[in-house]
């Protein structure tokens, strides 16, 4: 403990260095409480079963102090907002490859940006609850980072809201729309866990193991498709992300080094959160393979680089603590052949309930799929997509008008197939207190069976719709012409027939073409911006 009162006077000493100031903040400023017992000050520190003997063993490789943190972040903000302003003022949106690209941003804004905000809340909570001050300070900084990421993403994408459809009610939608219950329930699960599980869930499994599969595809996708705004927020977040990854890795190593009893608990969390994170990445797989007009790489290639190679090396490194690769790892590797096509099929047929546009891949794009997925695309998915494209050309586009069965844990429609057999849906079932619960995979069933009391409470959108809980206050279910699915779409605040229409013939498509033409010809002004 540093004795502040007896410290030498400032005039006679030089200013302490960064390392020294960090040590003062994270070791010297903490104290054992005496008016209140420590277990009441930190009420969540022990119930998960994690044993910590010496918080001073916590090693934060970044050793950031608050003044340094503010300085770095302010510098990054200045650069970021200069780029965003320039992009907006120069009609940067007209430099996009194609307006189809915007749909990946709509997916990001509705599905991912709200998670950044939840991560902010989660780390603020954990930063309060962990008894070790080094970990607390690191979590506090990550909490601020996550708030900044949420803000910069919203600012960057708000530029498109003036001009294109589907960007307007992302926050409202996040709590209601069927597919957004997937990312929402993922984070709600994490934030209602204890502080140590949260560190493994978000700090380690998500930030360390899976983050490259989320951010690299989106941000590279932005770069490949001319979106300077999204690219800039991605780069601005990058140095934060590397700090987050290091924090996650330190958290897991610290838990494992503190007590051998922590190993089985940590292993279970890795199994669980790898699988939960992987299921959320279903949306990214589809974005990479189907939504980017100019493609960066296939989902399969991304998985091989960022999961199989990088993740494989990580788990080799952790083997010395007794950690093995997560359950479900092999299945995730096998499913890379099918994930994106199965997901895109789902959004295509439920287009009417999604606030972004879908389309069938062009003949050229189908050839790209065949080349990237030689073992699966032509056999399983080309016949489906060609059939749909033909039907669409004949004016008979396929819409699935019946709601799907959902997985109790990941909340994704039960679209995943049995390991090793892409022609059969994978069904898993559990009983708890006389009720039946359905899951999409061994991974989700294991999670349910371990903590059924938590997952029986899932707010499953399909079940809620059928109970009549998803209509606006002005809906009248007794009216003769009551259309329940239309009322749900209105409750989602989708602009019916505009936000949720097929891309072909959409206002986004027409406006983009008209505006783009004006930049290179003397064509008369056309197009009507979103909301007009």
């Amino acid at each position, binding site marked *: 403990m540093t004795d502040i009162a007896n410290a030498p006077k400032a005039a006679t000493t030089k200013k302490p260095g960064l390392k020294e100031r960090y040590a003062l903040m994270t070791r010297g400023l903490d104290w054992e409480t005496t008016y209140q017992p420590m277990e009441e000050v930190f*009420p*969540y520190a022990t*119930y*998960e*079963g994690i044993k910590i003997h010496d918080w001073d063993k916590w090693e934060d490789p970044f050793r950031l102090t608050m003044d340094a943190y503010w300085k770095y972040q302010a510098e990054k903000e200045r650069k970021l907002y200069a780029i965003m302003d320039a992009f907006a003022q120069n009609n940067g949106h007209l430099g996009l490859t194609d307006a189809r690209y915007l749909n990946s941003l709509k997916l990001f804004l509705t599905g991912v940006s709200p998670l950044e905000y939840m991560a902010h809340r989660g780390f603020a909570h954990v930063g309060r609850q962990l008894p070790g001050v080094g970990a607390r300070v690191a979590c506090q900084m990550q909490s601020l980072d996550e708030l900044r990421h949420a803000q910069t993403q919203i600012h960057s994408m708000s530029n498109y809201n003036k001009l294109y459809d589907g960007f307007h009610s992302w926050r409202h939608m996040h709590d209601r729309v069927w597919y957004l219950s997937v990312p929402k329930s993922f984070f709600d699960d994490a934030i209602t*866990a*204890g502080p140590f*599980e949260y560190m493994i869930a978000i700090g380690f499994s998500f930030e360390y193991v899976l983050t490259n599969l989320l951010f690299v595809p989106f941000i590279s996708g932005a770069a490949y498709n001319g979106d300077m705004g999204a690219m800039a927020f991605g780069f601005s977040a990058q140095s934060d992300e590397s700090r987050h990854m290091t924090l996650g890795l330190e958290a897991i190593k610290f838990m494992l080094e503190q007590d051998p009893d922590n190993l089985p608990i940590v292993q279970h969390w890795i199994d669980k959160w790898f699988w939960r994170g992987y299921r959320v990445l279903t949306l990214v797989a589809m974005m990479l393979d189907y939504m980017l007009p100019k493609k960066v790489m296939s989902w399969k290639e991304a998985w091989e680089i960022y999961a199989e190679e990088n993740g494989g090396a990580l788990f080799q490194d952790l083997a010395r603590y007794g950690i093995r690769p997560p359950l479900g790892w092999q299945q995730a590797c096998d499913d890379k052949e099918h994930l994106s096509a*199965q997901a895109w*099929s*789902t959004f295509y*047929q*439920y287009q009417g309930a999604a606030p972004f546009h879908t389309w069938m891949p062009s003949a050229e794009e189908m050839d790209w799929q065949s080349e990237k997925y030689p073992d699966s695309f032509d*056999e*399983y*998915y080309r*016949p*489906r997509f060609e*059939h749909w494209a033909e039907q669409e050309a004949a004016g008979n586009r*396929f819409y*699935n*008008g*019946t*709601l*799907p*069965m*959902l997985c109790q844990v990941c909340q994704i*429609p*039960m*679209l995943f*197939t049995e390991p090793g057999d*892409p*022609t*059969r*849906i994978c*069904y898993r*079932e559990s009983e*708890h207190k006389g*009720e*039946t*619960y*359905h899951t999409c995979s061994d991974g989700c069933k294991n999670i349910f069976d371990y*903590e*059924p*009391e*938590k*997952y*029986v*409470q*899932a*707010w*499953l959108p*399909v*079940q*809620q719709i*059928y*109970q*009549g809980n998803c209509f606006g206050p002005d809906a009248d279910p007794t009216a003769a012409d009551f259309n329940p699915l239309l009322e749900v779409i209105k409750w989602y605040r989708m602009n019916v027939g505009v936000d949720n229409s097929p891309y072909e013939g959409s206002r986004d498509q027409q406006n983009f073409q008209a505006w783009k033409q004006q930049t290179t010809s003397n064509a008369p002004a056309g197009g009507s911006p979103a909301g007009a």
Partner: protein
Amino acid sequence: MAVAAVKEYVGVPKDTQDKFHGAQLTFIGWLDHLMFCAPFAVPLPPDMPFGAIIEGVLPGACGHHPDFAKIDWSTVEWTKGGKPFSPDPAKSLTENGMRHKDSITFRTPGLTGIKGSST
């Protein structure tokens, strides 16, 4: 341990049968036809005859598929909870042993989707 919690913790399910206004939720999957990305979820009256699924529910749900009109219902193989199931079309769902949130599937021999791709 059914949950990790700081004190006694009881989860309240949000989809028990009493919340469905007299209906029971039924999940129906058509095997080898993944053009329908996931099994269907439909709320049905428990006293409805099973045959009404074939005549009243499935045409609306599956009619878009070219195989649907070709189904010979006398050869269809059903499962319930993954086990073989021989429903009597004239009897009600309850009389056929179907409960809330049961999952049934049907296979249509000889019909395996667009170009045999299980689509």
